[in-house]
């Protein structure tokens, strides 16, 4: 964290935001805006939005992953005696928490017969009306323009400039 201690809160502009690699890849190809939009939605389920970024940038050795491992080791040390490093690594990999998406993939629910209720079948599905309201990503008001580079919306020249300076192709990773 930078040592500007006046406040833990900093202005957006004073801070470089990390762009997720997936997002860069998606945006490099303008056809893939939909994918970028999906990645942005994914980010709404994140914990610690900026935290990981800071830790990665500073090579902080108490990053979340290391903490996880220390935590895992403590858990495993009870009851088990010596283990080879490999066995430990294997076990760690096996026991490392996986995301829900990974667990869902492993459950292969799509192979269930269609009458069986499941997580996948319970999804509400697309809206019946395709009309989408567009709000300016800068100020929130009705937006009639779309950025040709990233697909985000803005309402006016003023907001377009702000968008180009601060938001365009920058996402919260």
């Amino acid at each position, binding site marked *: 964290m930078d040592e500007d201690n006046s406040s833990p809160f900093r202005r957006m502009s004073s801070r470089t935001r990390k762009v997720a690699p997936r997002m860069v890849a998606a945006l490099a190809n303008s056809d893939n805006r939909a994918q970028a939009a999906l990645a942005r939605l994914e980010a709404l389920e994140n914990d610690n939005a900026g935290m990981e970024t800071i830790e990665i940038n500073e090579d902080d050795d108490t990053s979340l992953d290391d903490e996880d491992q220390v935590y895992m080791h403590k858990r495993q040390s009870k009851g088990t005696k010596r283990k080879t490093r490999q066995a430990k690594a294997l076990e760690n990999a096996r026991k490392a928490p996986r995301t829900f998406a990974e667990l869902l993939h492993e459950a292969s629910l799509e192979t269930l017969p269609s009458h069986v209720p499941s*997580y996948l079948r319970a999804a509400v599905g697309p809206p019946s009306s395709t009309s989408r309201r567009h709000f300016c990503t800068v*100020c929130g008001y009705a937006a009639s323009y779309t950025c040709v580079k990233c697909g985000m919306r803005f309402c006016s020249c003023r907001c377009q400039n702000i968008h180009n300076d601060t938001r365009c192709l920058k996402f*919260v990773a």
Partner: protein
Amino acid sequence: MSNVVVVLDNGGGLIKAGLGGERDPSTVLPNCLLRPLSSKKWLHPSPTIAASSEDPLDLTSAAVRRPLDRGYLINPDLQRDIWAHLFNSLLHISPSQSSLLLTEPLFALPSIQRATDELVFEDFNFSALYVADSPSLAHIYETSRRHVVSRGAAQCSLVVDCGFSFTHAAPVFQNFTLNYAVKRIDLGGKALTNYLKELVSYRSVNVMDETFLMDDVKEKLCFVSLDVARDLGVARKPGKKNLLRCTYVLPDGVTHTKGFVKDPDQAQRYLSLTDGALTSNLGAKVDMDHIEVTEKPEDRKRIDLTKNEFDLTNERFLVPEMLFHPADLGMNQAGLAECIVRAVNSCHPHLHPILYESIILTGGSTLFPRFAERLEKELRPLVPDDYQVKITTQENPILGVWRGGSLLASSPDFEAMCVTKSEYEELGSARCRRRFFH
């Protein structure tokens, strides 16, 4: 079997826990570990309804680890740690002398159910387990309160559970959730807080790391709009005419470690925007595209950084708005009203009128002011004219599910509904789980 039943509503955001038969849970606790800036270690959060109002931890920029992802248990080791703290230090119970009534989200994957059973029986040695889903518990609690004459109405409800990780519309019939008819929107309180963080960070101050602070902002200042076009117009008016503008003061880390609403009266002014008051207020119907821009965007961007505060205007209602129109965010999912209609339509036609007149709102995200009003406004045109639409908000949408669990745990049938530890050892997780299905 022992007679102590621990009732544990294990939410993605909050754990609600206590003993069966009591009116309210004795502990409400964030389901996570925290690492404040001042600490190298991960710490247990303090219960949210603890006697002392002063949280000893400064949660500014604290990192968070949660055992649940998208509502489902993904990190049993972390959950074990949190539960051990809960049982030993907060509830002071001995699991081997107790039964457990545990909530689990609908459609939990078999691997997740197995991991849960292992925690309950192998790590904690509970003597018996009953797994319940939130909608049926909310239904049980509400029907116990209703003095209904009509029998049909007492037997079924359409429970809208809008929690931390997702939103479900779930028809419940004779205390069982009709899972073939349940519909889910992948949005809950967590996504709303993150969206608010994003808006405030891009528009004024960087709060991307401030989960707890922004939860507070959301809870105190957000509301559901009854007319989005109108409220967007009001939100851009200058000075005192802007009934929606309000200011939130950030913690300075010295005199206060928590943020607060600068002028609570100012923050409440939007309540005067009822359908009647609006016409007199604005004089004419506001057409969104022709609003005179009375305020330059820079005005609202000008933030006094020495004061460490930020203003909110349209963010207050654009955030909960997502639940009603996820498509506005680019999400390919129907909104809440349509979600309810689809759930109802998946049930037998005889149930349709009864379900529409017994809609129950539960879950913390239904606490936004005017949530029920807006929902009714959107739902009414989608429901056949000869059906009534009646929406009940739970008296306490955060505790309602737990209270239903407490009632169930103290019912005479409860013991017979449980799976005992010896049955689990003999039959294994998958076969025991079949008992909870219907």
